[in-house]
C-alpha cells in the first residue's frame, strides 16, 4: 500500500527496500522499517513499512524489524499478549479480547470494549 519511489533506489527496489528481487519484492528494509510479507496468491512479496499492518505487531531489534501475527480475536495488538482493538464480536478488557464482559462492565459494540 505504501510504495514510494525513491530516486536513490534502483528501479527494481521501491519504498523502503534495501535489497529486493523481482519475484519476492523487498528482501531487506532500510533501517527502522518493518519487513512484512504480503501474500500474493502462491507468492510472498516483501514490503517495507513504518508500522505493521492491522492484525500484526512489530518487534524492533538492532538488525531487523519484523511483523508477527496478533491472536486471532485481535485486530490490532501491542504484542502477542496485549490487544489494543478486538475483532467484531469480542470486547477488550485489560488488554484481552473476551466474548463477554465482567459483571460490573457493559459490552460496547462500537468500541468493541468493556466499558
Amino acid at each position, binding site marked *: 500500500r*505504501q510504495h*514510494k519511489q525513491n530516486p536513490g533506489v534502483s528501479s527494481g527496489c521501491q519504498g523502503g527496500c534495501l535489497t529486493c528481487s523481482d519475484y519476492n519484492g523487498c528482501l531487506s528494509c532500510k533501517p527502522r522499517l518493518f519487513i512484512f510479507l504480503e501474500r500474493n496468491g502462491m507468492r510472498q512479496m516483501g514490503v517495507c513499512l*513504518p*508500522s505493521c499492518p492491522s492484525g500484526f505487531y512489530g518487534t524492533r531489534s538492532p538488525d531487523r524489524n519484523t511483523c508477527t501475527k496478533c491472536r486471532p480475536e485481535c485486530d490490532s495488538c*501491542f504484542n502477542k499478549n496485549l490487544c489494543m482493538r478486538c475483532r467484531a464480536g469480542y470486547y477488550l478488557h485489560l*488488554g484481552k479480547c473476551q466474548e463477554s464482559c465482567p459483571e460490573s462492565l457493559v459490552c460496547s459494540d462500537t468500541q468493541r470494549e468493556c466499558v
Partner: protein
Amino acid sequence: SLRNGATGQGQSTPAICSSSCSCDEDGGADCSGKGLTTVPTGLSAFTYYLDISMNNITELPAFVFKTFPYLEELRLAGNDLSFIHPDALSGLHQLKVLMLQNNQLKTVPSTAIKNLYSLQSLRLDANHITTVPEDSFEGLQQLRHLWLDDNSLTEVPVGPMRHQANLQALTLALNRITHIPNNAFANLSSLVVLHLHNNRIKEIGESCFTGLENLETLDLNFNNLMTFPEAIQALPKLKELGFHSNDIAAVPEGAFHKNPLLRTIHLYDNPLSFVGTSAFQNLSDLHSLMLRGASMMQEFPCLTGTNNLESLTLTGTKIAAIPVELCEDLKVLRTLDLSYNEIEELPSFQGCLKLQEISLQHNHIQQIDRDTFQGLSALRLLDLSRNEMKTIHRDAFLYLTVLTNLDLSLNSLTSIPTTGLSSLNQLKLTGNLQMKNVFTAKSLPKLRSVSVPYAYQCCAFVGCDSSTSSTDENIKKRRDKKFIEKDVERISMVMHCSPSPGAFKPCEHLLGSWMI
C-alpha cells in the same frame, strides 16, 4: 461500515477527497507515500482516519488539523518530521491513535500533545529522542500504549510517567539506558507489558519494579545485567520473563518464588555458573525450561510443583545424577535434553509417559537397565551417544515400539538388544570398537539407515559393490548360502549403511580381523 456519528445523516454521501488521497465513505483518507510536503487540504471534515505516512512533511505548523474535529487516528510515520508546532494538534479532542514513529524528533513534543484527552496509543519509536520533558504526558489521561523504543534515551523517563495510571504497555527497548532506579514505574498500576530489551542496563534497583502489580511481560533481553534481577519479586502476576543475553553468573535459590504464574523464562546466553536448586520450584505454569552451560552447577534442580513442564533442557553442567523421583513431578514432559553433563547412572523414566525425545549424549553412563525406559510408548528419539556403555539389558527397548531414531555411537558395546524396536528407522553404532560380530537386522523391519563400527558389517545390508575386483568375485561365491536366502528380501529394504564396503574394505572377514 458507515458510522452514523461521523456523518450525522445516516445516508452514504460521496466522499469529499483530495486529489493526492484515496478516501472511503467511512471517513478514511489514505494519502500515504505520495511525496507530499504539506498536510493535504480539501478533505472531509468528518474524516476519522488520516494516513499521511511515508511522505516528505518535515514540519507541522499551528492548527494544521483544525478542520478535522472527528479525527480518531492520525498516521504521520516516516516523514522526516523534525518540528511540531505547539498548536499543531490542537482541536483533536477525539484522537485515539497518533503515529509519529520513523521521524527526526529529538524530544517528545510535549506541548503539542498536551490536550489530546482521548489519546490511547502514542507512537514515538524510531526517532532521535534524547529527552522526555517532565510534563510530556500530563494531559494524556487515557493513554494505554506508549512506544519510545529505538531512540537515544539514556535513562528511564520516571517523572513524565508518574501519572500514567492507565498505561498498559510501554516499550523503552533499543535505547541507551544504563540503569533502572528504584520506584521507576511506581504508579503504573495498570502496566501489563514492559519492554526494556537491547539497552545497556548494568544494574537495577532492588525495588525498581515496585508498583507494577499487574505486569505480565518483562523483557530485559540483550542488556549488561551482572546480577540476577531480584527486583522481579515485586511482580506477582509475571507470566513471561526474558533476561537472555546478559552477563548473569548465578540464579539464586528461590529466584522465582514470588512469581508463581511464570510460563516462560528465557535465560540462555548468560555466563551462568551457578543455579540454586530451589530456583525453579512451584512454577506450575512453566512449560519450558532451558538451562545451558551452568558449568558449576552440581545438583539437579528441584522441580517439585513445577509439574506442567513439557520441555527440559539442562546441559553443560557438573550434574552427575538424576533424581529418582524426577518423573513423579514431570508427568507431561515431552522432550528431555540432559546432554553434556557428568551423569553416570540413569533412574527409571517410567512415570514420564509422554516423553518423545531423550538426549543423554556426552555423559558417563555405563549401563541401561531393564526398567530405564520402561513404559515410554511415545518415545521417538533416543540419543545415548558418547557415553561409556558396556551393557544394555536385553529387554531395555522392549516398550519402545514407536522409537524411530536410536544413537548408541561411541560407546563400548559388544552387542545390542533389538527386541521391541519394530519402528526403528535409523540406528547409529559407529565407534563401538568391540562390536565385531556380523550384524543382522531381522527384528528391525523398518530400518532405513544404519551406521556400524566396521564396513564388513554393512554387507548384511547393502551387498557388495559390483566394481570389486575378480578376486572379490571368488570370495562372493564362497559366501554362506543360508545367510543370503534369509536376508535377500531384507537387503533391498535398507537404503543406507555406512561405512560402505569397497575394494579396500572387502565384505569377507579376513583372518579374524579385516584390518590386516
